[in-house]
């Protein structure tokens, strides 16, 4: 057997189906793999710009300019700055997106990073900011860039974190900047790294976790040539010295403070004239919302348009959920389009923010809802809720070197929103005091910086404390919103709590809904791993005043574009319902038509087969052309060798197969699959088919149930009598012998006493007495106007059972008619004699029509009306011994000849 014969044959429909699938798959893959058509071009080059105080030095910057592909005029520009530790590559996505919107985008690697030269000066006005001014000069000289005046390009500055502060400071230093979008950036580095949340003049607490991450990022550039100093990496000497100083002691000297102030937008905010969109992250322990708040206030004070947006993300939370990213992107583009490109309406002053609404199973991230208010409310909210806390003054211990330390956030791990919100917070027993509220009667939508008043006493007169606000659920599980805590460093404290003056502690601004029934817990702790706490052990006493102020904002929910899918779903369901209704209506109409006889002249004829032909899809012709009729009262035998096309004909009669040509009419109704007239036909085709897990009786019952006809019409008793299974009828059919199944199948075919019974090889598997009984049953069955069609490959079967016979071979009818006619005696007789020549002579004299020798001692004689007895008597009188006289039958002649010649070539039909 060759392998190719096992493959499915190629037919037209298979080729078409295969081609369609192939095209679909190819299209899908192509669609996914096809490179997006770029609507921009880019060029990389090193640009040398003046740098240092007075522009005395120069530095070579690694830049890339993106230009929109199809631009007729000069285009506005965007200077896109990267974050700390990044390069021009880290902002390529944003750059491509802006270039696609018709901006020339210049990205560059800040000095001290990547392939650019120079050192890290922390956005120093003399270095990084001056570099950017050089880039503005360069842009102004490019012929593609739109200019406001000679040397003044139309330009916006966009950047996050390190790049955000650069945008602010560049706008302050260079009036050529037309708009800026600084995000997740700082206002004052001295406040960022020496954070002080209490209303006191004392220096804050050193944020050692983040400072280390920052410093590590700048020093870890192994490829740089600046590795001469392993302690400082590519940091400029003054920055490095300042870091080492403050990281060692935790208390900055004046030089360090000056340096941090110089690298901050805070002192120069009033000079910013470029409209500013400030984007700040709600999950950001490095640059919390208060930094943007300070920037917003400073810039607005100078009369410059400022807009603020918060998103659920930041240095701890990453880019945030997709809805937030989309919103920030929309705001940015709107801002640039109006203030730089000069397109679109003036952006409104509305303030937008987002609040965690739940958990998205698909992105394994958080889902946020966006809200909007008409104006930026600041960190105090538009309203506030007072909550009273309980708890008396408690002593808490500061361990030496702040170890072990409480955990609130994991600086530098970035982007683990869900981790942070699931809460990594852990307090160390003995090191914290907790002050609880009762369960909240109503949910509170906190948006802003909560405030409490704290009293502390210390034997050393100083205390470093960390104040946190927990949301505590009914089970007592506490969540620290965004991992944000308020570090407090107090000086001049009394040693007794009773003498302590309260100070106001402003907790970090958060956006959170504290659910109804939850309570609020304010914790005052002595340590936190993100901050540097005093090395000397001490025990403080702390007390929190009962009043906790929670600022609230009631924002308008921003419509969620996802809700459109609900309408899609509703529309889909409606369309399916409509489609189904149409299909059902059409079907009902078609079914109704089937009830009228298609040919009235045959309305009383059980079966008329006319010119039936069946060719299969692979070209095999099972039935060439078959026509016959079954009248009432007839038992018609469909006789033919295996593969003659009998079963295929019967399959068409049962509506299992559609004929290629011709038709079969049952009581005048043309047969199509499911023709109602089939209910007047009982059938056994291709062997029995029963559910093996049911008994014979249950199978008959189940079959009759499926007809939907009344039980009394079934005539189960008659059917069971015919099956003759006795008690075995209550055994499962899987245990039946072949003969038992066959009898049960005949009984099933006779259920309801159908007017036409079609049986395919009914005696298959029956023993001789059962066959004899079956013949009687079938003959009797046809007597009262019913008809039976039996197929068989056994001549004797047809001869003894049927009134009429149809002989088929190779898909064609070779003989048909009443059995008496075609099975009845033929005029010829086979005679075996002792002396053939003598017998021939005698017979010729008798006047028979022909004498043909048949074997050594046989003769086939066409007696031509002469009685057989007379023929025999003549032979005997002539002294010829007669061994055997066999009457011949016409059908046998034909059938045996057919089988003999065809059995080699016939396939399984």
């Amino acid at each position: 057997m060759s392998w190719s014969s096992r493959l499915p044959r190629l037919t037209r429909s298979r080729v078409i189906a295969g081609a369609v699938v192939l095209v679909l798959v190819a299209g899908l893959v192509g669609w996914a793999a096809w490179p997006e058509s770029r609507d921009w071009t880019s060029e990389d080059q090193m640009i040398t710009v003046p740098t240092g105080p007075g522009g005395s030095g120069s530095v070579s910057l690694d830049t890339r300019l993106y230009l929109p592909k199809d631009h007729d005029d000069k285009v506005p520009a965007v200077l896109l700055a990267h974050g700390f530790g990044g390069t021009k590559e880290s902002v390529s996505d944003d750059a491509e997106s802006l270039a696609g919107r018709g901006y020339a985008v210049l990205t560059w690697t800040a000095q001290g990073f990547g392939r650019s030269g120079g050192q890290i000066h922390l956005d120093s006005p003399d270095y990084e900011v001056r570099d950017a001014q050089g880039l503005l000069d360069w842009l102004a000289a490019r012929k593609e860039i739109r200019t406001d005046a000679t040397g003044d390009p139309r330009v916006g500055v966009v950047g996050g974190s390190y790049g955000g502060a650069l945008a602010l400071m560049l706008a302050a230093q260079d009036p050529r900047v037309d708009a800026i979008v600084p995000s997740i950036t700082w206002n004052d580095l001295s406040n960022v790294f020496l954070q002080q949340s209490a209303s006191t003049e004392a220096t804050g607490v050193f944020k050692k976790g983040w400072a280390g991450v920052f410093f590590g990022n700048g020093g870890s550039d192994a490829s740089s040539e600046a590795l001469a100093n392993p302690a400082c990496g590519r940091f400029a000497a003054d920055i490095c010295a300042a870091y080492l100083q403050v990281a060692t002691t935790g208390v900055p000297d004046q030089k360090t403070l000056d340096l941090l102030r110089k690298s901050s937008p805070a002192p120069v905010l009033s000079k910013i004239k470029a409209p500013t969109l400030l984007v700040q992250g709600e999950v950001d322990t490095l640059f919390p919302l208060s930094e943007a708040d300070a920037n917003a206030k400073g810039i607005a004070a100078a009369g410059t348009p400022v807009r603020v947006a918060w998103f659920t993300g930041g240095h701890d939370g990453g880019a945030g959920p997709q809805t937030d990213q989309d919103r920030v992107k929309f705001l940015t583009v709107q801002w640039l389009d109006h203030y730089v490109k000069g397109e679109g309406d003036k952006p409104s002053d509305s303030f937008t923010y987002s609040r965690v609404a739940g958990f998205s199973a698909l992105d394994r991230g958080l889902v946020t809802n966006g809200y909007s208010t008409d104006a930026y409310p600041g960190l105090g909210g538009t309203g506030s809720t007072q909550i009273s806390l309980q708890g008396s003054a408690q002593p808490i211990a500061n361990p030496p070197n702040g170890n072990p330390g409480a955990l609130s956030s994991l600086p530098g791990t970035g982007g683990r929103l869900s981790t942070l919100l699931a809460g990594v917070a852990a307090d160390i027993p003995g090191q914290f005091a907790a002050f609880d509220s009762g369960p909240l009667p109503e949910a509170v939508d906190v948006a802003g910086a909560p405030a409490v008043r704290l009293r502390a006493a210390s034997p050393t007169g100083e205390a470093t404390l960390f104040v946190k606000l927990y949301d505590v659920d009914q089970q007592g599980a506490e969540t620290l919103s965004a991992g944000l805590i308020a570090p407090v460093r107090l000086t001049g404290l009394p040693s007794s709590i009773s003498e302590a003056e309260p100070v106001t502690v402003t907790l970090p601004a958060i956006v959170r809904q504290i659910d109804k029934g939850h309570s609020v817990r304010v914790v005052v702790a002595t340590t936190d791993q993100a901050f540097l706490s005093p090395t000397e052990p001490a025990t403080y006493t702390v007390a929190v005043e009962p009043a906790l102020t929670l600022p609230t904002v009631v924002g308008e929910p921003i419509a969620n574009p996802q809700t459109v899918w609900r309408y899609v779903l509703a529309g889909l369901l409606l369309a399916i319902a409509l489609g189904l209704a149409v299909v059902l209506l059409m079907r009902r109409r078609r079914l109704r038509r089937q009830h009228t006889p298609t040919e009235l002249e045959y309305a009383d004829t059980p079966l008329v087969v006319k010119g039936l032909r069946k060719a299969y899809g692979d070209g095999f012709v099972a039935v060439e052309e078959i026509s016959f009729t079954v009248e009432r009262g007839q038992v018609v035998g469909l006789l033919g060798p295996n593969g003659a096309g009998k079963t295929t004909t019967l399959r068409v009669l049962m509506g299992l197969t559609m004929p290629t040509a011709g038709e079969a009419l049952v009581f005048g109704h043309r047969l199509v699959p499911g023709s109602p007239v089939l209910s007047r036909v009982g059938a056994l085709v291709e062997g029995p088919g029963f559910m093996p897990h049911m008994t014979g009786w249950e199978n008959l019952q189940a079959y009759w149930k499926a007809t939907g006809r009344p039980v009394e019409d079934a005539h189960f008793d008659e059917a069971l009598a015919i099956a003759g299974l006795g008690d075995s009828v209550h055994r499962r059919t899987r245990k039946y012998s072949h003969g038992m199944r066959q009898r049960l199948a005949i009984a099933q075919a006779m259920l309801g006493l159908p007017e036409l019974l079609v049986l395919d090889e009914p005696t298959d598997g029956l023993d001789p007495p059962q066959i004899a009984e079956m013949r009687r049953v079938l003959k009797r069955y046809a007597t009262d106007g019913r008809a039976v069609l039996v197929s068989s490959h056994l001549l004797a079967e047809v001869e003894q059972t049927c009134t009429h016979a149809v002989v088929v071979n190779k898909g064609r009818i070779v003989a048909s008619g009443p059995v008496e006619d075609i099975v009845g005696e033929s005029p010829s007789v086979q005679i075996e004699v002792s002396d053939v020549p003598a017998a021939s002579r005698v017979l010729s004299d008798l006047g028979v029509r022909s004498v043909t020798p048949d074997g050594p001692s046989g003769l086939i004689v066409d007696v031509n009306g002469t009685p057989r007895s007379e023929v025999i008597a003549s032979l005997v009188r002539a002294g010829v011994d007669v061994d055997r006289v066999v009457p011949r039958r016409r059908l046998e002649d034909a059938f045996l000849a057919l089988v003999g010649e065809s059995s080699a070539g016939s396939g399984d039909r």
Partner: protein
Amino acid sequence: MSVLSSPPSAGATGYRPSRTLPIWAEVRRQASRRRTQGALGFMVLLPLIVLVAFAFGGNGDDESEGSAFGSLVDLATSGGLNFALFCLAVSAGFLLVVVVALFCGDPVASEAGWGSLRYLLAIPVPRARLLAVKLIVALLYSLAALLTLTVTALIAGTIRYGWHPLGSSVAAEIPPGQGLLRILGVAGYLAVSMLIVAGIAFLLTVLTDAPLAAVGGAVMLWILSSILDQITALGGIRNILPTHYSDAWMGLLSTPAQVDDLVKGAIAAICYATVCWSLAFWRFTRKDVTS
């Protein structure tokens, strides 16, 4: 017209195409099968096995990666609602798929295999009706399996762990009454998302005579889709994978419930099921039944 001996209707007395193969008859045909009884029985057994496993398992110290699923394990013993949620969650990925594929991939192919399909068609049960009844009953059994699992888990979990709020690590606790609705919502979404399995399995059962091929094929396609869905490099194609939204029910655990992904998942499931079933009907009403 009284000369005509044939009845006014084309069929035998009492025969009405719309009365053939009543739904109840098909329910009984399937009910006596070991396969049906086994699958439904296992739905009762599974929560009990899980219950026993929790009882004997003690406090395992498996670190549960802080994922949403990890928290489901941690919280499974916190109350009947959480126990039911856990049982649904562990079944959603594979067990339910197999059970639904079994109920929907078997009915036509097994009748074809036994040879009884041709006798049903010769009754004649109209082909579209046969398929519709088979489909409806298969869906009813699938739904019964899901409900059996949910109800058993709810009852067993509540008896063992009590009637407590529905907890999760992603949102505030949900009070028991509302929590019950959420659990039913999860079960309902699982039912909708299983329509995809039902669709594929039912299409296959029409195309093949081997029940195993239909059931196995549907399960394998589901697994293939799950694997592809893990490959983020496929980008947008993942959104149209049948399994892409299979975890969206977790959105029901947060407060307020996140239904956007559920809606998209329902759209995907209904589209897949409609296409598969349409193809199945189109094919079955035209094909030559040769088995």
